[in-house]
């Protein structure tokens, strides 16, 4: 069952000179209940913006241009005892709730979205290490979240729960009375994870959960997330620039570049049958579990600025396989299955299937072979000069 359904979401950042930055353009993806979904891409590709926009946590100059964020859950005041939207709310044309009970988060007001935050969608921010307020006890900060969304809970109960949550992520319950500066980096990370679970959300957004942690801690944190998923049945939206993290944790994923989804689908298919030059390049630049002695090749060039971008493929400037067509318009999402088995370039309609945005989807074998060669990338760079 679909928990989150993002349709054609475009996010803009207003710039002083009147132009705007296209942080994401027409992004669509969906997350099933209990699933771990990954968003991967270089920094600046819009993945964090995308995640923040779901719960309206964009910076002051960011806004949603168009698109919907359908979420299977609704405001407390709109829901019945089971937590589903009531019929009267669904029927009310002024309320952004559709027939299947999903609510369009993008259409909620700031006051309304606050009830969704943490209760339904918790977010572990990128710098989780600094996300704990230094002047309050860690336990109190968890309690604060509980009391915010479950005001009927007594303070004692909330404290009890906070200790319990900490224990679950492997922190001594008594450390609830400590301050953040008394915690190690990994402990802080886990404390934030515990905090995120405080209200049993349906969706947990983990923004770069492992960045700035050493490898051993990284693994533990990922294990922790997996464990939580099993325990709580929570869906996790993982955001990372590190494709190897995705390989480890995700069920399905989307590769983003320049505000666009370049390739999406089940993780195994993306890794096994990579169907996009960008994903190929990205794979080259990270050590993978599958080929440990691989030479790392980074993609030459830098990501585009995204300020009022032109119509062409976002990746074309850095793509060694760019052709004439690429300059005209950004490619649609082609069905990889169809391309591989039938050799046809056919737009994919199933968001859950393996899809890729590349005009040369019909030449996949060739692309994959060439991409492994380092010279493919480096020579291309020299040529482009």
């Amino acid at each position, binding site marked *: 069952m679909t928990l989150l359904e993002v349709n054609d979401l475009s996010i803009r950042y207003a710039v002083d000179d009147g132009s705007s930055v296209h942080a994401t353009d027409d992004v669509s993806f969906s997350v099933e209940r209990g699933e771990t979904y990954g968003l991967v891409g270089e920094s600046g590709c819009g993945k964090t913006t995308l995640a923040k926009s779901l*719960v309206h*946590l964009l910076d002051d100059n960011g806004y949603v241009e168009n698109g919907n964020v359908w979420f299977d859950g609704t405001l407390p005041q709109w829901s019945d005892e089971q937590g589903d939207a009531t019929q009267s709310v669904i029927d009310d044309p002024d309320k952004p709730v559709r027939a299947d009970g999903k609510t369009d988060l993008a259409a909620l007001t700031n006051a309304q979205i*606050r*009830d*969704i*935050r*943490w*209760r339904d969608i*918790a*977010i572990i*921010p*990128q*710098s*989780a*290490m*600094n*996300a*704990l*307020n*230094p*002047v309050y006890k860690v336990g109190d900060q968890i309690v*604060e*979240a509980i009391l*915010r*969304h479950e005001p009927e809970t007594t303070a004692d109960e909330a404290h009890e729960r906070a200790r319990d949550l900490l224990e679950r992520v492997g922190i001594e319950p008594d450390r609830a009375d400590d*301050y953040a*500066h008394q915690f190690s980096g990994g402990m802080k990370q886990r404390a*934030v994870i515990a*905090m995120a679970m405080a209200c049993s959300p349906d969706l947990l957004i983990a923004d770069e959960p492992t960045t700035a942690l050493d490898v051993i801690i990284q693994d533990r944190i990922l294990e922790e997330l997996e464990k939580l998923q099993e325990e709580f049945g929570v869906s996790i939206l993982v955001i990372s620039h590190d494709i190897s993290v995705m390989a480890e944790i995700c069920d399905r994923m989307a590769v983003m570049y320049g505000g666009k989804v370049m390739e999406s689908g089940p993780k195994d298919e993306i890794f096994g049958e990579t169907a996009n030059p960008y994903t190929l390049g990205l794979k080259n630049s990270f050590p993978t579990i599958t080929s440990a002695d691989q030479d790392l090749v980074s993609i030459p060039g830098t990501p585009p600025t995204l300020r009022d971008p032109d119509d062409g493929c976002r990746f074309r400037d850095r793509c060694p396989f760019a052709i004439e067509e690429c300059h005209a318009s950004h490619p649609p999402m082609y069905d990889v299955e169809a391309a591989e088995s039938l050799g046809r370039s056919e737009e994919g309609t199933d968001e859950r299937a393996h899809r890729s945005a590349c005009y040369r989807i019909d030449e996949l074998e060739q692309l994959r072979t060439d991409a492994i060669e380092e010279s493919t990338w480096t020579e291309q760079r020299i040529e482009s000069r």
Partner: protein
Amino acid sequence: MTRISGKYLAKRIVVSYLTLLVIMSLLFVLLRSMPGSFITSMISSGMTAEQIERIRETWGLNEPLWKQYVQFMINYQTGNFGRSPTYNAQVWDLIVRRMPRTLVLFGSTFIIGFIIGPLVGMYLGWWRGSTKDKSIFSTSLLLYSMPSFWISWLFIWVINYELDWLPSAYMFTQFPEFEWTAFTVMRDVLYHIALPVMSLTFIGWVGSMLIMRPTMNQVTDEGYVFLARAKGLSERTVMVKHAARNALIPVATGAVVSLAFLIDGSVIIENVFNWPGMGQIIVSAVLNRDFPVAQAVFFMLALLIVVMRLLTDVVYTYLDPRIKFGEGE
């Protein structure tokens, strides 16, 4: 809540004490390096040399300077501030009479200023760059550049002289017709203190606002502010509980500094408002070479600042649990 160890506190007190000793010594030297002596006003023409000598003796001026110094230091250790030749009274009595008045005026100004300033700074820092921020900020800078006595005159002119709403001088009704009870005294003081406090705080809050605004703006980018929002807390809670609380720490430091400036301003303000506090006697004590009074006044000010510094340390530990004094020493 405080995390100051007894040992550290003891050490700080010793250091404060030594600081005061150094200040006293400097005071002694500075005051005596000025030409002239208060004895000028005590000697009359008909006196014989013997009588004059007796007066000098009474005031300890016949002793060599180093002996005067030693005596002075001993006296202060034992709480003996001496007698004022110009006020013709025990210096301690003068201080007891005047110090509370100064503390009442500047204490309330200080407190009100440090409520308004950080509050405004919080809002402006939070909404930095907004039209409201820009207009309030530039207005406050304009205020800040005005001399305090000028503002005071303006207030006196409008509120006292033109409108006749509030008195512009003294702390009490000079010749009261009403009965003196705790209530009437309180009311009388409030009535009299209103105008000076208003005109002082009219610009007095700006200093702390100027500290609060940028730090507030800095903490807006902190991860814990983002997290607080992500938790679904209201903007108000995020701003006050999570952001402002962290931005207050530099304000506490600023408070001690501004205290020194407040005292500085008291000289002018007490004269403008005819407020019979310490500020009024500082200048005349120095001009008249009334060393006992001048020394005592400056000593009290030094003491005030030293004590305030100690208090700020306690406040620090309350504001920021990361700060500890004296652990591991």
